[in-house]
Each structure stands twice: as structure tokens, then as C-alpha cells.
């Protein structure tokens, strides 16, 4: 028994060392961002932010439209998440619970989407959104929220996860409601949704984080500073001038802060969400 606890202690210490190494780059970025620009370059390095300075943060917050970018990111992320959850849930319900012609074909069509690298489609997608669709619907196009949101709504994995969870709901529940005359929409929103709130939250959170961090599409489709999201906007504050390590790190920290805070608050849900999204068989 003694030997067991000693090896357990060694294991714990090793785990803690690894965790420390893993988190160190983020720690060092935070420390750098809290120094004065000239104190960043001291040798030997100062391991704590001494003297503590918020110079870099005040510069980034006051001199760049970062607050506006937060707002844009919030609108795009929340809007996309809402639509992903609603549309994918509806679609998954039909695929899971209803019989209709062409169902299998549609399901396979969805699975094919996994394989194609999204970046390979940007040329036609850009043409479509910025030009072809815009001429019909002026509210879609470059520098519009819908132009950023709609192409990100097609999240196949959310459908697949929902379908698995709907498949597992006992059939009697649906049948009895159907005999009561309830339509598919009422059954979905009054029965299937309430018993799947857990997975809905988890999927929403995972989707939200993914959209918040998405870079390439919002980058292509925005040309106005006022319409940029956080990951796009911060690249615009990167300019090839002067010494600006503290400022660069402050920008990086500010960009990451909302999602990291979000994770720390909803840690259990995030973890659950990822585990559930992977619950499918490959």
C-alpha cells in the first residue's frame, strides 16, 4: 500500500509540472501585457509584472475600436448560435422521427460535407455572398451581419448529435402526443426540446465558442472597421512599426478573454458539450 501512494504522489507531481508547462505560454503573455513596453525587454527576464502597468491595455482599448468589435462578435456569435440550434434541431427531428421520401439521401448528403475543406470553397462562396445574393437580397453581402452569419449556420455535426439524442427518446412519448393531435412542431418544442435542454445548452456553448473564434470567413467578408469581429479586428491593430510587445500581448489577451471567462464559468457545460459532440461513431 505504501508503494502505491508514493508512485501516486510522483504521478501527481509530474501531472502538475506538465500542467504548469502547458499553461506557461498564456501566463507569460499575461505578464508581458502587464508591463511597460521598456520593461518587457529586461535581461534577465522579470517573472512577475513589476512594476504593474495597464499602459498597454489602456492603449488598445482607447486607441482601437475593440469595444465595437466585441459588440460585432457578440451579435454574430449569438445570432449564429441561435440559428444553428433552431434549424439543426428542427432538421434533426425530421431525420430522426419522421418518415419521408429521400430521407436517407439527404442524410448522406450531410455526411459528405465533413470531408470537404471549407477553405477550398471560399472562391465561389465569396462570389455568391458578396455579389450574386447581394443583388437579390441587399441585406446579405459584405459588411453585413447576415452575410457573416448565414454561411456559418450549416453545422452538420449539431444535426448528427441531435439526431442521436432524439433517436434515444422513447417512442411512446411522441405517439401519445400525436394521438392527441399535436403537430410535429408542437411535439418538438413541447416534448423533445425540454427533455434535451442539457445537450442543447452544451451544443450552444460549443457553437458559440467556435463562431467567436472563427477567422477566415469574417475576414474575407468585412472591409469596414466598424463591422469587424474581434479575431479580424485585432489583426488590423498589428502594424509593422516600433516596439510593441506589451501591446501585442494585451491585444491577444483581450481577444481571448471573453471565451476564456466563458469557459471558466460554464466549464462543466463546455466539457459536456465536447464529450457529447464526440459521442457519435466516426
Amino acid at each position, binding site marked *: 500500500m505504501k508503494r502505491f501512494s508514493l508512485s501516486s504522489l510522483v*504521478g*501527481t507531481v509530474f*501531472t*502538475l509540472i*506538465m*500542467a504548469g508547462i*502547458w499553461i506557461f*505560454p*498564456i501566463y*507569460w503573455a499575461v505578464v508581458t501585457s502587464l508591463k511597460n513596453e521598456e520593461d*518587457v*525587454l529586461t535581461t534577465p*527576464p522579470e517573472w512577475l509584472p513589476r512594476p504593474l502597468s495597464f499602459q498597454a491595455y489602456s492603449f488598445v482599448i482607447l486607441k482601437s475600436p475593440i469595444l465595437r468589435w466585441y459588440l460585432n462578435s457578440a451579435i454574430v456569435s449569438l445570432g449564429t448560435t441561435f440559428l444553428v440550434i433552431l*434549424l*439543426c434541431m*428542427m*432538421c434533426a427531428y*425530421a431525420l430522426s422521427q*419522421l418518415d419521408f*421520401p429521400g430521407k436517407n439521401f*439527404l442524410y448522406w*448528403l450531410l455526411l459528405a*460535407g465533413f*470531408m*470537404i*475543406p471549407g*477553405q*477550398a*470553397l471560399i*472562391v*465561389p462562396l465569396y*462570389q*455568391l455572398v458578396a455579389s450574386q445574393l447581394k443583388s437579390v437580397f441587399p441585406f446579405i453581402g459584405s459588411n453585413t451581419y447576415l452575410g457573416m452569419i*448565414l*454561411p456559418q*449556420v*450549416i453545422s452538420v455535426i449539431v444535426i448528427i448529435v441531435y439526431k442521436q439524442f432524439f433517436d434515444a427518446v422513447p417512442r411512446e412519448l411522441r405517439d*401519445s402526443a400525436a*394521438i*392527441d393531435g399535436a403537430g*410535429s412542431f408542437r411535439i418538438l418544442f413541447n416534448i423533445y426540446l425540454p427533455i434535451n435542454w442539457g445537450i442543447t445548452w452544451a451544443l450552444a456553448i460549443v457553437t458559440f*465558442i467556435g463562431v467567436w473564434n*472563427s477567422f477566415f470567413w469574417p475576414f474575407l467578408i468585412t472591409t469596414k472597421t466598424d463591422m469587424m469581429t474581434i*479575431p479580424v479586428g*485585432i489583426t488590423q491593430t498589428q502594424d509593422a512599426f516600433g516596439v510593441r*510587445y506589451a501591446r*501585442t*500581448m494585451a491585444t491577444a489577451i483581450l*481577444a*481571448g478573454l471573453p*471565451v*476564456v471567462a*466563458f*469557459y*471558466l464559468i460554464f466549464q462543466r457545460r463546455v*466539457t459536456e458539450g*465536447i464529450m457529447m459532440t*464526440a*459521442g457519435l461513431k*466516426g
Partner: protein
Amino acid sequence: MSTTHKTLPSPKSPVPSKPWRGRKLKMWRDAFLLIAPFFLLYFLFFLFPTIRAIQLSFTDAPLVGQGNFIGLENYQKLLNSKDFWRALRNTGYFVLLTVVPNTAVGLIFALMVVRLNRLRSIVLSAFFLPNMLTVSVVTLIWQWILDSRFGIVNEIASMISGQEIHYSIFRDPNWAMVAIAFITIWWTVGFNMLLFIAGLQGISKEYYEAAQIDGATGSQIFWRITWPLLWPVTSLVLTLQLIAQFKIFDQIWLLTRGGPFKRTMPMLQLVYQEAFQEFKGGYASAIAMVLFLIILIASLVQYRLLRTGSR
């Protein structure tokens, strides 16, 4: 659900049971209304661009516009292009450097985390937090950490060795790709770890208790119980990794732009440059189609291999 309620006619449906045909039609209508919104977007923003990309790959289209049909010319040009083979080799090397290591590290971290009690959520957060960051933030942080003049890694190396070290790993042709692979693992391994934790928690405690009573050693328990029972998760992680890593582009573009001397240039960089810098939309689409084909074949091969692996 009360059974008595079921037998009572519902006020909303005066006819207790509709004719069979009517119910079927109603179901079809409901199904259509339920799937239409999503599939409308799916056709518009996924299938249509996919078909367009396939079509463009047979044309000399610029970045925006139709172009003329030129048959297989783009594909011929591709096969004779040095850059194409170089990019293919680099992408393969990156896949090699990440798929299995990222899976293995994820498993090791998961094993480390599940045996903890009080420290568990802190350690889990430490391993998982990088996953929350967007790619540009990840590369900004690592560029600073590994900066040749003022980066902390060079500072520490200088302190240990007692001489000034100004090493720039992103400029080293032999190590740049390894560095990118390491950063990719640092960034994404938390995801794999979570999947493995889920898998480990799904293994019934009884197996371990029985094994301990039999006096099995730690490594025996791992290889006889954990490994085989975890295999479905392992093969899932490997599959997801394989598809994801073939699509490598963002980190490389932000860290090395494919250099030094194209040693880290991946397939998607070629697509991006041909389309958005050289304005050759048709040729870029052809490269993208080849990449798609490679991913498809690799996934199928791996699927077969993993199936035999589970036996």
C-alpha cells in the same frame, strides 16, 4: 402520460383518427417544413459552392468570374508543378507529426487527469484553455515566446548554457515544421483529452476492481483493460485528427508563410495563393479538388485499418 386522457377525443381534433393517407401527407408536410430552412442554407452555402468549385477546376477562371472551359489542363499543370508535390509532401509530413502524437498526448493527459480528485478541475483547465483561443492569438503568443532576441525560451536557454543564444526555430528548415506541429498539439490537444476522459469514464469500475483483486500490475491493467475498451474513442480521435490535419493552413500562414524555402508550405496555402494572390480561381479549385480526394482516400484507408485494429 395518463392513459385515460389518450382515449378522450381531443378538443382540437374532432376526428379521433385521420385517414392513413392524410396523416402521411401531414407528416411529409411537417418534415418538409422542418428540414427546409436548414437545407436551403446547406444548398446555398455548401452544395452550390462545391459544385461551382468542381466546375471552376476545369476552367481558366480568374478569382471572380466564369472563365473558359479548358478540360483537364489545370490538372495536368498541377501534376507537373514542383510546388504541388512539395506542398503534398509537406502536408503529409505535418499529418505524420501531428495525428498520432496529438492522439497519444491527449490519452496521456486524460489518464493523468482522471486519477486526480481535488486538483482535477484546475489541471483540466490548464490543458484545455489553449483550445479556447483563436488561431491568431495562439500564433501571436508563440511568436513572442520563441522570439530569437527577446523570447523567454531563448532567455532561459541562454541562462542555462551561460552563452547568448538567439535561435529562431521558425527559420530553421529542419525544425520549423516540428515547431508548428508542437504548437498545434499545444493548442488542440485539450479537445482530444476531453474525448478520452469521456471514454475512460465510460469504462465500468468493475473491470478495474476485478483486475486489482487478481493482482494485475498498472501496465497490465492498461493494456488488457483500458486500451481495448477505449479503442472506439481512440479510433474516433484518430479519424477526426486525420481529416483536420490535412486541412492545415492557418497556423503556418501566420507563423512561417510556408518558409524557409517552402519547407513548410501546405496544400491549402497553394490554394490560397493561387486564388487570392495570383487570381487563378480555376487552378486553385483544381488543387482544392485534389486535396479533397486525398482526404477522402486517406479517411477510407484509415477506416479500414482502424476496423481491423479493433479486432
